[in-house]
């Protein structure tokens, strides 16, 4: 199979060797306590439980009426100890429901539901009720993605197994061990969205998965009722960062570009991460809400690393030293991949639905150089696969010229970090663009307020 690709991007060394052959292992926090953030993707939730309540595994503990919200469920059975704020991925403090697990093992799952006979509304509602969000990292509510705006015709459903971030191997393990669940999830998503073609997209460093995936497809097709009725294929792409971003997936696989500011649905595409698809499959077949998630824990400072399935809300620090062991010399703790992840101050942060990995990096692995002067080499321009001009965006920002920065691509930046990765002067371009985007939003808000004010003044006259 020929590998498809896109122009630009970068090629950091993969560093997947340490964990790529390690099977998924279930792990439980040492303290038997989970800290479940009340909101994990979508609009803010309010807690449905109070301290002292006993909860069952899978019981809804926080929800909201907003369409853009998804509920959160208890990931262990036990007693709610307190509701307290805690620093989570992204270094923000959010309220968490703290549950201490007991031995009762009571569960509160939904009834299984046949996705191919129920109505579309019921199916979308099931995905939402199961609390499913994008598990690749963005935590976008899955039911919203599966419900494209009226009028858009969906042709392709892409299952994102590219996993272009170095170190992370969790999507690869999911595809290897849960291939049939992935295919079932794809069929369900195709059924809901009306897509005619399903494609599993992987990078060519995971070529060994092609036969596994193709066998799973053949098995599913052997019974042409329900899930077997859907046409699914595998597409290999070149190993190149950021292949896993939606914009690059559609570009490489279909040769189509998502319009600026638009959604993949505008070009007839819906995309979900492979982990999300397993969760969707389980939500229908087992009635199981999203209460646990697989993740890779790796990095040069890990003496024992691996791919684990843990209850949502598990503090990463609580997995040390029973599940993961560390050597001296941890310089950075990263939630997510090394290119787009967040640096954390301590390991005592909860695993959320969108946490695909946690890395413990040594000083040598993570560069701590100071920024130096821009030499104008233009490497960032060549690296930007969205064909933006990072150095010019930055210069315009420094000159306080937001319009020029936007013309050079500020608002089209996907913050993938390719430009920062190649910068020989170590300039933190992505960080500067994040700040720049915030400034653009603030300016827009101010302009709006001024407009309102003007109208009010006119009204007074």
């Amino acid at each position, binding site marked *: 199979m020929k590998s498809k690709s896109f122009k630009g991007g970068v090629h950091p060394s993969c560093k997947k060797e340490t964990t790529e052959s390690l099977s998924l292992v279930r792990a439980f926090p040492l303290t038997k306590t989970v800290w479940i953030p009340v909101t994990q993707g979508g609009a803010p939730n309010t807690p449905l439980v109070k301290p002292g309540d006993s909860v069952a595994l899978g019981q809804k503990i926080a929800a909201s009426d907003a369409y853009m919200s998804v509920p959160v469920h208890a990931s262990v059975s036990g007693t709610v100890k307190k509701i307290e704020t805690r620093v989570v991925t992204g270094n923000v403090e959010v309220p968490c429901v703290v549950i201490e697990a007991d031995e009762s093992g009571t569960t509160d799952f939904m009834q299984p539901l046949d996705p191919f006979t129920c109505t579309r509304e019921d199916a979308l509602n099931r995905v939402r009720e199961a609390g499913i969000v994008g598990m690749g990292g963005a935590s976008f509510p899955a039911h919203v993605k599966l419900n494209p705006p009226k009028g858009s015709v969906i042709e392709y459903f892409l299952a994102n197994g590219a996993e272009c971030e170095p170190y992370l191997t969790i999507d690869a393990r999911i595809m290897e061990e849960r291939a049939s669940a992935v295919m079932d999830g794809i069929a369900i998503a195709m059924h809901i969205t009306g897509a005619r073609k399903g494609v599993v997209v992987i990078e060519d460093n995971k070529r060994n998965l092609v036969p596994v995936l193709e066998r799973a497809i053949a098995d599913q097709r052997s019974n042409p009722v329900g899930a077997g009725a859907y046409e699914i294929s595998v597409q290999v792409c070149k190993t190149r960062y950021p292949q896993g971003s939606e914009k690059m997936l559609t570009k490489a696989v279909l040769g189509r570009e998502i319009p600026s500011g638009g959604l993949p649905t505008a070009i007839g595409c819906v995309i979900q991460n492979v982990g999300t698809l397993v969760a969707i499959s389980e939500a229908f077949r087992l009635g199981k809400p999203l209460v646990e998630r697989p993740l890779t824990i790796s990095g040069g400072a890990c003496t024992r690393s691996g791919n684990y399935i843990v209850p949502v809300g598990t503090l990463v620090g609580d997995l040390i030293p029973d599940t993961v062991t560390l050597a001296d010399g941890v310089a950075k703790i990263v939630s997510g991949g090394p290119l787009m992840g967040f640096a954390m101050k301590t390991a005592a942060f909860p695993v959320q639905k969108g946490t695909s990995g946690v890395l413990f990096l040594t000083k040598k692995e993570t560069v701590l150089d100071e920024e130096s002067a821009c030499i104008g080499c233009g490497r960032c321009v*060549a690296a930007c696969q969205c064909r933006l001009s990072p150095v010019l965006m930055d210069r315009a920002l420094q000159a306080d010229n937001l319009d020029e920065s936007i013309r050079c691509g500020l608002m089209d930046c996907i913050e993938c970090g390719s430009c920062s990765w190649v910068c020989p002067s170590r300039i933190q371009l992505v960080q500067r663009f994040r700040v720049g985007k915030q400034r653009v939003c603030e300016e827009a808000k101010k302009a709006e307020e001024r407009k309102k004010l003007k109208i009010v003044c006119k009204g007074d006259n």
Partner: protein
Amino acid sequence: MAPSDKNEIYLSSSPHSLTPVTTRMIMLTVIGTLLPVAAWGVYLFGIPALVNLVAAVVSCVVFEALFRKLTRQDVRIGDFSAVITGLLLAMVITPVTPVWMTVLGSFFAIVVGKEFFGGLGANVFNPALVGRAFMFVSFAQPMTTWISPRTAGGQDALASASYADAITSATPLTYIKPVDGVVQSAAEIADKSGFFSSSEVYLSYFFGHRGGCIGESAIFLLVAAFLLLLITRVIDWRAPVAMVVTAVAVTFLAGIDPLLTLLSGGLVFGAVFMVTDYATSPVTPLGRIIFGAGCGLITGLIRVFGGFPEGVMFAILIMNALVPFLDRLIPRKYGKLPREKGGQA
């Protein structure tokens, strides 16, 4: 918490892994490709070339360090960019330049050409060429006094027999320059400069056996340097290729032998080491092509019509001034339709 207690944990924005290629490595690569060219210059022109090379490099580094110290800025000679400026400056002057002029030129290059603009990456004009232009207009006569290389063939060989008398020998450009609008063919030039055939002229020039600046004549080393810099991805092919192609095309239209255009003067040196200077060339792909083509066009026009035999220096300095405008030629952004204007969101 075990890990955070034992270690110093750093916080920073993503990405957390970066390319191993740093500014210093890039600069060292450029120096690595410049040194063989410099060595060849010393081989061709002897001790005066060596003295000028050392003088330029040392004074560039010293002037930069002094200036930054006096203006209370951090001294960053560790990035080796001043070394490159020194090497480049020495390579585009005649080997018999008096050393004090070279030192003065270095001062002008570093202080006026680079640091007055804000130092590394902030300068508008190529510092080495600013220094050369300063020397060129201030000391016109010594700066255009050439010597034949010790290895010269043809008529020059006779001249260089008595080394000291070799001064004021002509460079190929003097032969090529149309005289009263009459262009000379390669064969005529071969005849005039004492070669037996035009192919002998080509070969001799290709290896730098001709009068000229210290570093510009060793075409074979310059081509090797170009390839090496391309492979190591230090430079982009667009500007140099556009410059050479345009210059050759323009002079060819004027009837000048294209091979001689390539092999004479500072065209190849300028294309490989001057138009690829990061700070003073555009960053966008289209901008680079137009920048290179503009350099080639002006070079060709000066060579054919101008009052000077060589036009590379002025061509690049003129185009340097246009870089901010060329940088406005950004590529079509992802997800924008071609007919849509780039700026509209």
